[in-house]
């Protein structure tokens, strides 16, 4: 039995400690917004926040995050500038990689609200999108920066 602190709630899950966090979040608990893409931490579709750090949940044993604060795409508020910018620019195509992209962008702007274009591209290049929405992702992050400025 593993106890997890996920999106502000506690869950007790009947899983082995070496089970990838991804499967626990998706299949045991049921937050399916976090996606399986490669199982090797390469594509970024499974990205969640562990204590605010973007983490590849497909290679993170659930036992290593017991008691830590985990946030998934479902845990990011709908009115957050990143989500709003994504909607405004109609970023997603198939949409499968987008939760991971959004979680990464959310963490980046939290840490570095004024991240430069180069910094954004460098961080986001660790995520794959087969639909090729890269141009719009970049624009959306820059748009979110603007929305955050207005808010601040």
């Amino acid at each position, binding site marked *: 039995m593993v106890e997890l602190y996920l999106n502000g709630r506690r869950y007790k899950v009947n*899983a*082995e400690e070496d*089970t*990838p966090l991804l*499967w626990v979040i*998706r*299949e*045991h608990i*049921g*937050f*399916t*917004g*976090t*996606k*399986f*893409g*490669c*199982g*090797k931490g*390469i*594509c970024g*579709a499974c990205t969640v926040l562990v204590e605010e750090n973007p983490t590849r949940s497909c290679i993170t044993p659930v036992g290593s995050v017991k008691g830590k604060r985990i946030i*998934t*795409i*479902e845990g990011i508020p*709908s009115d957050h500038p990143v*989500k709003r910018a*994504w*909607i405004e620019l*109609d*970023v*997603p*195509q*198939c*949409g*499968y*990689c*987008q*939760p991971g992209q*959004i979680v990464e962008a959310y963490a980046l702007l939290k840490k570095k609200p004024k991240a430069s274009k180069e910094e954004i*591209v*460098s961080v*986001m*290049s*660790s*995520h*794959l*999108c*087969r*639909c*090729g*929405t*890269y*141009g*719009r*992702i*970049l624009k959306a992050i820059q748009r979110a920066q603007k929305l955050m400025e207005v808010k601040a």
Partner: protein
Amino acid sequence: MITRRDLLKISGLGLGIALLPDGFMLVKASENPQIKPHLWASITKDNYLVLLINKSEMGQGVYTGLSMIVADELDFPWRRVIVKPAPAKDIYIDKKMGSQLTGGSTSIRNMYEFLRLLGASMKEMILESASREWKVPKEKLQAQMGYVSYTNKKASYGELWEKALKLPIPTKVRLKDPSEFLYIGKGAPRIDTEEKVEGKAIFGIDVRRKDMVYAVVERPPYFGAKPQSVDDSQARQMKDVLDVFTISSGVAVCAKTVEGALKGREKLRVGWTKSPLEGFDDERLSQYYLDMLKKKGVVARKDGDPILVLEKAKRKTSAVYLLPYLYHATMEPMACVVDVKEDRCIIYAPVQAQTWTLQTAKRITGLPEDKIEVYTTYLGGGFGRKSNVEFVKEALEISKRIKKPVKLIYTREDDVKSGWYRPMNATRLEGALDEKGRVIAIYHKIAVPAVFEWAGRPSQVDRAAVEGIENMFYEIPHVHVEFVKVDLPIPVWFWRSVGSTHNAFTLETFIDRLAKIGNRDPVELRLELLKNHERAQKVIQVAAEKAGWGKRPKHGDAMGLAYHYSFGSHVAQVAEVSLDKNSGQIRVHRVVCAIDIGPLVVHPDLLISQVESAVVMGLSAATKEKVSFSKNGPISLNFDTYPLLTMSEAPHVEVHIVKSEGPMGGVGEPALPPVAPAVANALLWGYGIQINNLPMTPESIRSLL
């Protein structure tokens, strides 16, 4: 206020359980489909329009594009439109394809007229219903944005819908004049964006059913091998493992949890029969394709006497190209949920091919069609791959055997090992110029597997093998096109833009080589070859002009152009490229694209996003992608060995829409073929490099310098 998302929650779609909306009657398969609004649409009492869309949403925006057409003719507020996937039924077959299938960049083209008629018929019935209720002639009523009104009377479509449905379906309806369009030609926000941004969109891998178990399949290392011996003693000891058994494609491991199934599979010991492909590593495959190119094939086109003209010509050139197997790399690997019961079969799957899924289910379960339900989830990428439904077949076999709902998941490695690649191919091109530098002969011969034959539609000359060459618009007096069928048991399939992926590359790079030996400008040469094809000329002119053809490139050091016609659309692209000669690394800074899909663009922003998408995918394939093989099978099994283009490598894409008269063309695929040759042509003119092999990796470029 109820938002669209709330409604999705209520209806259960958000949970991926009740995909079939209430209020729709399912018809018998034999019933003759016509405009039958009750089978395609419903308007709820509180005035939401619910549409069943018969095309798969795989990112191309088809739910938005198609429902917009109905909402426009119906005159309905966009924010109150809800889309649900149409189940697999004869009534939802795309009549122009004869199948419920999403592919070939045809969805809007094929459904446009029908959906306009549907929306207009619904509006007509609603007006008639109000007219009878209020005893006011129909002509005096106004139907606008979801409401019918007359002086001080007003009713929502939703209030009138139930009675409207009982009225006869009008045989004649008035369609809007384009000046009255609300959405068509302008666009509307994507209907699927919010769900996708919130992580609530349900893909095949996300479906959950009560008592569902998980399954993974151990596959042979190389195609065609069968399990000879299976030692499952250790696998069965693993926690959560329920059963292990052989199915048609390998050995299935079923477990209560996905991690249990994966761990169980690790402990499985399978001895495989020898694959007929054993020994076919990259080197041997290359040699095999090049040898096949020397064999006699089937002539697909012959104009004049190209062989004689080439023999006599003074100015001529030739090239042999070798292009690799490509993997679709949908971000969602194959996954689906299937429940085979004694008397019923339910399938939730991210498929492009509902009819083929239904036929497969009939074959595996033995159940009649009306006992099989096929619901399409969102597709985490399609690109042609998910019109192949072998993965659903596996899930059907497993569920039938274990008598439980099964979620079958492919790991990334399983996905690559399952095959269905864009075929490898070898091409020989020869061309000749006359004394004025005019192209007078082209000899083309390709050795390639027959994609359409793999899809069950064999023909002497495989359509995919020669598309884009056999039907090219270039007017050349002497032309030879020949197809040699490669018959290796490596499964191949439709890969976004299919035969044009390779034929545009070979032909378009070859045209530039001819221009070079003839001291011709490649744009001017193309315009000469296309002098009777105004649409083709126009896109080339627009792309060249917008990119600043003939001037120094705005970004990078070299510029290349390519043109291609596919799926009914003309596309020209100019790529701005630079090359680091030390590393061999190329960088594509900007791609300027001109596209002509005809007189009407239903949703301009969807067109733009499809072009952006196609350019990135085409460039990814051209610069990075190749399925590599060892003697024992494919070895590019994940993104570390099959890398995709990333944001840092993605060019800025500039899209210019050119309008013209003529039939409507497609959008999803046509912008992919020109990008690879445009980049290669930039390397030819800027650096004198001829690219005969893809991908253009730094190592391969360095070897050419």
